[in-house]
């Protein structure tokens, strides 16, 4: 027996292989698998043609196929990337225009499973369906998604959903062809919709005649976080955006969405200088604003177009396009907030930011840095302006990235 030479060779080769690829096993002969393409482009622009004129809306393209089908697929552009919600929601007429029919989901009683979900001032309504979803080289199979029933082809919304014209089911009112919610949880409603004695007004079972009543939905039946269902790079996401060229408004800004945290060379959490903010069961960390002792629940939300916080000392635009946003009398209004993580990831850090007069924004531009609003709010929201010039990391609930376990936000 002369083991010296055969053993020494793999022992020498191993560090080289590990340096060249990821998850290298003990094999010394097989070529390393190519890394999975995990980057897609993000764009802030004026929105889809049917909803032109959007502001601070961050868009991405998504490929969806009927579950189990390789052929019945649609590439859908201008889907809003929303880190403040969970679930893929697609406007029904946009799918229909590409002749794609997703597989409807049923509740345990054999009724269609439908959803009413509040966003901002409105609510989405429509059935849950299954899709195979692809982005770059990542793929998730049989993902529960919501179809926004803008053609009113299915069960009508119940009386407590979207009444008096507050449905946001179509492209013009949504400002997008859909919403891709990649927040820090695996499902949209979560445990609160699983077993309460009185079901929340969230999931509904609808009869063939179109009569709907609120009901509970198991976690596995709920509309899901697509990125958490990818077969790899599924522990979180990275959102990278450049600085704006003109703080008063750029027409188009492009960044990137990277899947996974510290799973490939392009998504590593920085070893130094990173602020990691753990989140609670709602997905919130905490913030204090401008030296106030009041501790506010806070999150980093690409689906909010402004910095959202209450400051009665800043004037509110009384009318016009920006009614309800802040219109500081003497811009820039320089303010700050201190973020603190919840739980084990309890970092703290101060962020300075400035609120500008939105009426100074360049006409026709789509990306603005200094937009503020939310007077009266008892929360703090780091909306889209926070993302410009930053790399922001989102760690998914109960998933591990380096030394950190989600849910967390980091920058």
């Amino acid at each position, binding site marked *: 027996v002369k083991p010296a030479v055969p053993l020494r060779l793999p022992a020498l080769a191993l560090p080289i292989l590990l340096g060249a690829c990821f998850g290298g096993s003990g094999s010394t002969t097989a070529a390393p698998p190519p890394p999975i393409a995990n980057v897609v482009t993000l764009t802030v622009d004026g929105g889809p043609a049917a909803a032109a004129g959007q502001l601070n809306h961050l868009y991405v393209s998504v490929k969806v196929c009927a579950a189990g089908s390789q052929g019945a697929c649609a590439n859908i552009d201008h889907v809003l990337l929303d880190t403040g919600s969970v679930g893929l929601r697609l406007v029904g007429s946009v799918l229909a225009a590409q002749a794609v029919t997703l597989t409807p989901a049923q509740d345990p009683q054999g009724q269609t499973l439908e959803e009413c979900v509040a966003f901002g001032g409105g609510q989405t309504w429509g059935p849950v369906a299954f899709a195979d979803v692809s982005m770059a080289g990542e793929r998730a199979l049989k993902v529960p998604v919501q179809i926004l029933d803008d053609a009113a082809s299915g069960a009508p919304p119940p*009386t407590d959903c979207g009444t008096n014209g507050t449905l946001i089911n179509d492209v013009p009112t949504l400002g997008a062809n859909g919403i891709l919610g990649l927040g820090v949880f695996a499902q949209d409603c979560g445990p609160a919709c699983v077993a309460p004695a009185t079901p929340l007004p969230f999931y509904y079972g609808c009869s063939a005649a179109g009569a709907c009543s609120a009901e509970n939905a198991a976690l596995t039946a709920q509309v899901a976080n697509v990125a958490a269902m990818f077969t790899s790079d599924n522990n979180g996401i990275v959102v990278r955006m450049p600085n704006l060229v003109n703080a008063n408004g750029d027409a188009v800004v492009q960044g990137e969405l990277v899947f996974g945290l510290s799973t490939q060379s392009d998504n590593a959490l920085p070893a130094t200088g990173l602020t990691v903010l753990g989140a609670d069961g709602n997905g919130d960390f905490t913030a204090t604003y401008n030296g106030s002792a009041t501790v506010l629940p806070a999150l980093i939300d690409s689906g909010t177009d402004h910095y959202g916080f209450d400051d009665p000392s800043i004037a509110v635009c009384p009318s016009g396009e920006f009614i309800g946003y802040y219109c500081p009398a003497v811009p820039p209004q320089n303010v700050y907030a201190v973020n603190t993580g919840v739980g084990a990831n309890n970092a703290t850090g101060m962020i300075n930011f400035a609120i500008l007069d939105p009426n100074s924004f360049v006409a026709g531009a789509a990306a603005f840095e200094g937009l503020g609003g939310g007077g009266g709010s008892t929360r703090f929201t780091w909306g889209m302006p926070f993302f410009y010039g930053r790399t922001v990391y989102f760690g998914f609930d109960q998933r591990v990235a380096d030394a950190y376990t989600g849910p967390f936000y980091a920058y």
Partner: protein
Amino acid sequence: MREISTGAGMRVREYADAGGMIFAVAWSGPARPDLRQLLGGYYGEFTAALLERKPLGMHRAVLIAGQSIRVELAGHMRAYTGRAFLPARIPAGVPIQEIR
């Protein structure tokens, strides 16, 4: 103040003056409550003011001032919050920040 809670984490607080007239409501929980029911006769005024915002879309935190009612919708999925009040009916000495 009267508080109504459910096992699903929904909480609604109603604020009444000495005469029993409700001048404010505040809510929080994993779903948005039925505003049509909560705002009663003021729901139409609220939605009319809301629809002046274009697009309705994703503004997420919404402040609406109607003729007689003010409504603030805030929060996000899993943590919806908001309040509505009648500014002219708030009793003297009640700070607005206490309605939450």
